[in-house]
């Protein structure tokens, strides 16, 4: 018996893309230690394609698994396609997360967008997928989590 499904457990026990890049092209940090989870994502970009990504995460098993899965999903993707990945896509790729853990996937989603925004900002680029994105948003420790029904 385990708390999470096999895919989540595998990404938690053997996480992919852990660490930091030398001279990353973009970096995003999201979450707060007060909330119990904080994620840092770094990316390398060549010709609008994400060629590499690394993460470091303070958080629970599903936060680490979400980071591992989300970075795996963006590597090799065009930036506009990477921006289309939602937290729901990360949850689906993980074969589902307990409803109470859905915010872990949101964390990965926002951290990736922050990293891309950082890259775009430094290189004077604009991406359609970043329209309306607030790069300075912070997780609200007092936010009442909306816990969806058991799936």
């Amino acid at each position, binding site marked *: 018996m*385990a*708390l*999470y499904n096999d895919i989540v457990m595998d990404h*938690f*026990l053997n*996480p992919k893309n*852990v660490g930091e890049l030398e001279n990353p092209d973009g970096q995003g*940090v999201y979450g707060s*230690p*007060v*909330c*119990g*989870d*904080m*994620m*840092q994502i770094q990316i390398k970009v060549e010709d609008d394609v994400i060629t590499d990504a690394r*993460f*470091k*995460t*303070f*958080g*629970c*098993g599903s*936060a*680490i698994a979400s980071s591992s899965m989300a970075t795996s999903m963006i590597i090799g993707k065009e930036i506009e396609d990477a921006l289309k990945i939602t937290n729901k896509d990360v949850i689906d790729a993980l074969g589902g997360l307990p409803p*109470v*853990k859905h915010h872990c996937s949101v964390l990965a989603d926002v951290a990736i967008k922050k990293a891309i925004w950082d890259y775009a900002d430094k290189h004077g680029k604009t991406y359609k997928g970043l329209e309306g994105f607030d790069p300075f948003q912070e997780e609200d420790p007092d936010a009442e*989590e909306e816990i969806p029904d058991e799936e």
Partner: protein
Amino acid sequence: MRKVYLDYSATTPVKEEVLKEMLPFYTENFGNPSSLYSIGLEAKEAVENARSQVASLINASPREVYFTAGGSEADNWAVFGACDAFKEKGNHIITTEIEHHAMLHTFEFLAKRGYDVTYLPVEEDGRVNPKVFEDAITDKTIFASVMLVNNEIGTIEPIKELAKIAKEHGVIFHTDAVQALGNVPIDVKDLGVDLLSMSSHKIYGPKGEGALYIRKGLKISNFVHGGAQEMGKRAGTENLPAIVGFGKAAELAKENFDEHVKHLSELRDYMVSEILRRIPDTYYNGSKEFRHPGNANITFEYIEGEAMLILLDQKGISISTGSACSSKSLKPSHVLSAIGIPVTRIHGSLRLTVGDPTTKEDIDYVVDSLEEVVSRLRQISSVDTKKGW
């Protein structure tokens, strides 16, 4: 793989001697203790024998011990029974911020129905200041409840002093002794409490059985209504095998008390000193002096508790955490918050509780595993362990 259970405050295995006593009461000695023929009378005798065994562990008279379906029912009965019986006198209740949810949620229920509840803060070591308690008493105060031993940090509360103050002000005093039973000396006469809750499964007895001590002469309202079992105070056919098991567990707890406490405190102290010595950025939470002999609560800075719990589980080790991520409510431990532990450190806290079956080899395996797990999660962590938060 080696299996090490270090969560004896959550529950304990039923001891062989206890199970052996229980088994005949499921089959050949299955009588209803209310029946008037032989197997009924024998069942009744077994219940009364168990009542004496439990009473003896807390130096009560057997007629002051009433069996319930566990610690939570005993807690609920004490609160509802006393607050109903004394409702003419007032509507004010005093308790603490660090009680078990069996108490806190019961008080929240009453607060919605016109009762006024004061939640006392505790000092940094988790202890209630008796002066603060006395100051909170008003002429409307009818009931006060402070746990004897806290379930997360193991702090032993100054119950004797608090009960004395309550008595001077005519306030009924209850203590939740679920964690204390069998682990710290309990003498209800010396403590001077009116009501005391107990649970069987924390002392190597079966689950689903507990008891409430009600001081002789104190009348509180019934909670479970129906038949005349338990001297007319708690209805329902007795859970005979579980009562017999609880009695035997209480008898063993009394017989082995000194040895049990020595075994637990030696292993706990060894474990804590090894963890603090071998793993950097670790903190021992709670009182060192006034503490349950088997309880350790330790923060591992820069990482999160549920992640540690799962990695340790992979190594066959069972422990628990105060991290919000491990709870369905996503709320960090209210006990660690109440003693002023910063929330970042609460997320990285583990509760490790040793028990009778624990060995030094178990502790060495746990410390080795912790060292590995903590180092691995710190490498993944986005917090730079050199720079700190």
